[in-house]
């Protein structure tokens, strides 16, 4: 029998891997992918809880998250493209204008 823990633990593992991707990769595109991975992990948890609680709100929420993620990727990648065109470079470690 599968329980909610099966899915939430999988979700936790995927989330951690997503976080790791964000932290150790230098290519902003792959960092972005890590973020998508984290979002998906959370979605999985939502759907799992939604299923095991017999409540659909979680699923509708995931549906909305899909929309938000798509919009986010569209704009985020546009930023990457813009930065790349300005600096001919997509290494996040060389984009350090946040420096205080």
């Amino acid at each position, binding site marked *: 029998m599968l329980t909610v823990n099966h899915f939430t633990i999988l979700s936790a593992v995927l989330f951690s891997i997503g*976080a790791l991707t*964000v*932290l*150790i990769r*230098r290519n902003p595109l792959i*960092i972005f992918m890590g973020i998508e991975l984290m979002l998906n992990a959370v979605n999985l948890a939502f759907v799992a809880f939604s299923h095991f609680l017999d409540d659909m709100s979680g699923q509708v929420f995931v549906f909305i998250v899909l929309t938000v993620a798509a919009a986010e990727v569209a704009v985020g990648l546009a930023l990457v493209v813009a930065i790349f065109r300005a600096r001919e470079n997509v290494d*996040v*470690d060389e*984009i*350090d*204008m*946040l*420096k*205080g």
Partner: protein
Amino acid sequence: MPLMLWLIPALPLLGAIINLLVGRRLPRALSSWLAVAFMAAAFGVAVSAVANLVALPPEERVLRETLYEWIGVGVGANSFSVNVAFWLDPLSAVMILVVTGVGTLIHMYAVGYMEHEKDYARFFFAMNLFAFAMLMLVLADNYLLMFLGWEGVGVCSYLLIGFWYDRDNLAVGTDEKFLSPRSSATKAFVVNRIGDFGFTLGIILMFWTFGSLSFAEVFPKAEEMFQIGAPVITVMTLLLFLGATGKSAQIPLFIWLPDAMAGPTPVSALIHAATMVTAGVYMVARSHVLYSLAPTTLTVVAIIGVLTAFIAATIALVQNDLKRVLAYSTVSQLGYMFFALGVGAFGAGIFHLMTHAFFKALLFLGAGAVMHAMNDMIDMRRLGGLRKVMPITFWTFLIGAFALSGFPLFSGFFSKDEILTAGFTSGNIVLWVVGVLTALLTAFYTVRAVILTFGGKPRWKEGEVVHAQDEHAAHGHGERGLHPHEASPVMTIPLMVLALGALFAGYVGLPSVLGANLFGQFLEPVFREPAVEISPTLEWTLIGISTAAALIGIFIALRFYLGDRETPQRLTRYYPWLYRLWSNKYWVDQIYDYVIARPGRWLANAFWTDVDGKIINGAADGLGRAFRNVGQALRSLQDGYARGYALAMLIGIVVVIAIVIMRP
């Protein structure tokens, strides 16, 4: 049929949005007629809503419709919620019919009047938006939503007074200098803000006292919790009344209304005569439950009302600008309405509000037609003889003038008479005497305006080039000199319809000796006024007195301006101080300037240079320096690498989760 109250404000709003977004791209006729169409549609919906209302038995005549919860805080006993909800009872029914009905006519008139303006889309946008705000104001079922409309009409009024923001002033053909439209708009806005401040305080106090702002909750609670004369209610009503004096141009805040004439004439007609300025009257009438609990406030309201009526009437006597005469007469008539409210005759006040909307809109539109014909020249000293040139305008204007002066059997006669009767029976004989005197003055200056404008011989020459405002003249037809002509049907039809209203609107509220006061009965479920029983003899006497006042005023005016032309000048010579007093409007503007504006400016300067410059800036700079030093120290932690920050965040999250888990 489902209730569609929300449509009434929504339709003008839609029109406003369309004109805002695409109005400039649309053909001129489409853009302007669209605005008219939305107003007419709103009128249609309003009529059907009122029909629904009337179909109910009198005691149950309240229709409510909640759109959604606007603000909701807390649950249970201490919760506070404000809904976007509408409330239609006989009082708001009268208001929406006036606003949409008269509004539609004025919009239609404006199509002709604004024909040559380049910014017609902006104009109709603001007009429709104004109608939206005004309808929100009168349909709101709570004070906060009403305040939304209240502020909304203020903003629209600002936009419309300053419509010709690029001009200097409008006194065409004379050397008289008035405030420029933009200054007038600012003045109106600022003066209104003072009133609004009181209104806001009143609302806050109300919320503090009752925990609610909705009519349905506040009024029963007020009657339950407080005795007549309770100080809280008195303060609250006084504060609300301060708001009303701002919006409805009463002493001490009446000074903005005459300057508001700098806006286009349809604006003056719609906003500064028929609707917006009556918002204060409506608000006080709406809050009659509260006011009935505060006799002190009622006395204040009555005194302020009568004083305003009298003072404005005296100023109107000596104005040379036709629109300004009408503006002061508006202030004066609003004073009458407050007088009625102040003596507890709420129904009479609303009755006068309605008849006034008809005839004053009519008079303004007539004045507008004259301006249109005379290249914006509005100085009565240079008009005259227009009777032959513009017959329709003349006759309709004359009807409006008779209604305003209270000539028997015209609409204004009935409503004014009802107010005076109520004033007399309430026992305030002094106020009543001043009211009657004002009625006499009203009749005088009204007829004076008619004669100077339309009667006698022309004081202008055909083809004469008047000194017109530069770019306006270029858009109008000023360059070709004066060729007065009757206005086009799109302008005269509203005039005629309004004239019918000015003639017959009074017959719904006949005095008891002549018939039934249908209007009063209609409003009765709202106000629950006890009908004052007075003897027919007394009533006939009072009717006779007000008739006499009107007739005497008219007679003097005829003597002065048709017969012996020397009399006015002689009077001016004999009583120069009186003339100066009136023509300088009691120096109220100057007093405000010395008492408030200059000290204010001085104080602001002091704050700016000393307090702000030395104390606050010094403190801020010092703090800034301190932060900068600390920041320099911390700077080394911020290496600017996004992933470093992300890692720091992760570490923080891990630590927090760990702490949460480890905690027993």
